[in-house]
């Protein structure tokens, strides 16, 4: 049996499959199809410094092969998170990744500081797609803010930092380099794509927040392309995500250069998805004669096109 362990810089996972932040419950909000401890990691929904209600409903709208969400990062605040959620996360017995979302660069620092000494956290993921206070663009779309936010977190924690990049940029590889230079260890490629739907009968946007982020199979080829580019231009471990539903999709990301994958919307349509993906990757490696996941990371770059 091929080895499924993957090493993402300072972080080692027993297999390359984890949920995407905000799409999977590790405790009671679990559809109960399998034990989250089987996952390479669990990833919590992004947490804020202070409690926040999130966006007004409707928060979801379906599109062809996609889902737009404008949930808006409701949060119980970091203190309540540490008190109420961390015990559940720890209990899963696998690697725990906590996603944080700030409204200012400093808040990323503060969140990192608060979470650094909490037992049971293995890495912090910075959700950089949140709009920031006092500036038009989210952190992930502004090179300066991006560097500030990542540096602020880096300055306050020794935990591995995953920078979850926005795909809504001209050059995601350049932005990734900025995040790495500012201290990120791992890149998550990528978050949702800006999108919206208008109700032609009400003649207004469907979502309470007007626009939101598109996820699901519709964006998979866009995410694969982003992983491919970043892999080519940046030396850093990549967690790939965007529209992964089946193990075949996950293998596609690995071949493009991801070392691990995050699964989002698929958890909604098939609560067994992540388990099936873990098994499917294993089966692919075995049947294709590979010895480990690492063997296929980025492999599609190196095999010459034979015709």
């Amino acid at each position, binding site marked *: 049996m091929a080895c499924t362990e993957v090493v993402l810089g300072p972080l080692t996972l027993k297999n390359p499959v984890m949920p995407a932040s905000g799409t999977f*419950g590790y405790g009671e909000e679990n*559809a109960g199809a399998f034990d989250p401890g089987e996952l390479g990691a669990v990833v919590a929904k992004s947490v804020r410094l202070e409690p926040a209600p999130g966006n007004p409903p*409707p928060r979801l*709208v*379906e599109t062809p092969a996609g889902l737009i969400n404008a949930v808006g990062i409701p949060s119980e605040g970091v203190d309540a998170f540490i008190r109420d959620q961390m015990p559940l996360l720890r209990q899963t017995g696998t690697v725990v990744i906590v996603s944080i979302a700030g409204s200012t660069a400093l808040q990323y620092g503060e969140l990192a500081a608060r979470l650094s000494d909490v037992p049971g956290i293995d890495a912090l993921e910075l959700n950089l797609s949140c709009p920031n206070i006092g500036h038009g663009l989210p952190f992930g779309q502004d090179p300066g803010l991006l560097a500030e936010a990542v540096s602020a977190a880096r300055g306050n924690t020794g935990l591995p930092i995953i920078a979850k990049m926005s795909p809504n940029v001209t050059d995601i590889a350049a932005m990734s380099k900025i995040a790495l230079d500012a201290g990120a260890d791992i890149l998550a490629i990528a978050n949702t794509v800006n999108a919206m739907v208008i109700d032609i009968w009400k003649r207004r946007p469907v979502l309470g927040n007007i626009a939101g982020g598109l996820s699901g199979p519709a964006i998979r080829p866009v995410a694969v392309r982003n992983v491919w580019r970043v892999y080519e231009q940046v030396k850093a471990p990549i967690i790939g995500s965007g529209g992964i539903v089946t193990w075949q999709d996950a293998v596609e990301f690995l071949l493009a250069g991801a070392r691990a994958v995050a699964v989002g919307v698929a958890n909604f349509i098939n609560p067994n998805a992540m388990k099936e993906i873990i098994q499917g990757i294993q089966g692919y490696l075995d049947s294709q004669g590979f010895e480990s996941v690492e063997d296929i990371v980025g492999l599609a770059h190196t095999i010459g096109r034979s015709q």
Partner: protein
Amino acid sequence: MYLTAEVTLQEEVVEGIYRLCIFTPTIASLAYPGQFAMIRGWEGYDPLLSRPLSFHRIDFQCGQVEFVYKVVGRGTALMSKWRPGHRVAVLGPLGNGFPAPVAPAVAVIGRGMGTVPLLPLVESARREGIGVFSFLSASHAGGLVDLDRFMSCSDQVFVRTDDGSLGAPGVVSEDLERVAKSTQLSAIYCCGSRRLARAARDLAIFLRIPAYVSLEAHMGCGVGACKGCVCETKDGYSKVCKDGPVFELNEVVF
């Protein structure tokens, strides 16, 4: 429970409204009135998400659950093409259903497809020997699905249709008010109309009895993980799938 199950019956009840039965002993043995299931049974990713449907009948003896749904878009249109033998993915039972009815009698008040989740409640009340008064409205007679079942399980049924095709035209909440004056009700259960819900709330406050409403929202996960399906309550946003779909009526901000 997430499982694959077989469609055992599909029939068009009236134009555009279908009855769908699924054989799933596990879910049938766990479900209670007011809960729902997320259902998906098509190839490909368009539409992407599962569709939530309330249990219309929970027959744990036959191991079967029954849904009644209206074709309103592509998901329900695809559903209506499923035939017996077709296999579908079902996640359920989900959510907090209706609190169990208590003696002496309960009132259920619903409109249109909102009567769907009320039927299993009415049937269970009847089984427990609790009185039931049903107040049902719809735009037209065809919109009152399974009226006969409501009749056979209720002490009294009041019916109103907008077009007068069944029952005298009028407002079914006024019927409820009238009945409430002469009958001791332990609770009111409501679904399918904001207007009826507001009327039921005011009456329940006046009578000092609990009242419950079953809400709908666009759903992603159905299990509370995505925070996509919120409604506004006095405590802020609540998740319809997990905190509901049944809420105490006066907790909800309409």
